[in-house]
């Protein structure tokens, strides 16, 4: 269950394709979430962002999430990648892949992972745009569970 913090660009779909290969004949379901930097937020244009993290604690938090997901759901494997540092619109920020024999557990685990990540892993976004710079103070809400 690799969990990786990277300051280099992510190649989400290639990573998902590679990581899923060993599971092809045993896992009927692969559910993934790819989070991408948008060029605007709440109507404001954004030129770039800086993603700060807490080295060590962030890595451990991601690894703990993957372990917890596997304990909680009937899944075979998790891939969890997160970008840090300076990013531009269109850059992939987070990749979550979940492989499971069946789709129900894969959907549940994938959605649980992104919600947990957004509320528990020490990562912070600073936005830079024509209107200036600001720290993002709250997440966009997920689905009510």
């Amino acid at each position, binding site marked *: 269950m690799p969990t990786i913090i990277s300051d280099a660009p992510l190649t989400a779909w290639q990573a998902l394709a590679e990581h899923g290969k060993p599971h092809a004949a045993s896992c009927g379901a692969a559910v993934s979430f790819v989070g991408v930097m948008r060029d605007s937020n709440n109507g404001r244009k954004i030129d770039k962002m800086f993603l700060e993290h807490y080295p060590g604690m962030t890595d451990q938090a991601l690894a703990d999430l993957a372990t917890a997901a596997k304990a909680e759901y009937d899944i075979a494997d998790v891939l969890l990648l*997160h970008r840090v540092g300076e990013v531009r619109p269109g850059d992939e920020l*987070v990749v979550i892949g979940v492989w499971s024999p069946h789709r129900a557990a894969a959907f549940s685990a994938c959605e649980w992972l992104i919600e947990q990540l957004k509320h528990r892993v020490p990562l*912070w976004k600073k936005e830079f745009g024509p209107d200036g710079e600001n720290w993002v*103070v*709250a997440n966009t809400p997920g689905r009510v569970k």
Partner: protein
Amino acid sequence: MSNSQPIEVLFFASLCEQTGRDSATLDASLAATVADVWQQLCPTLDMPVNTLMAVNQINAKADSAVAGGDEVAFFPPVTGG
């Protein structure tokens, strides 16, 4: 941990900017709790109400105990993903 070592303190994101520094060290004899660490290092700045805290990279609270050699971190609500 021994009180002969200082407490290592980290400030992240907006708290780094608000406190004017990303790290500090503090004589362990000056702080028994996480709240004490903040008070000693930022005596003129109330800790923002939504501040998150960690001791040795494990989530902690304002009244969590600290000792020499500990790594204490202050950071705002997380916004990754």
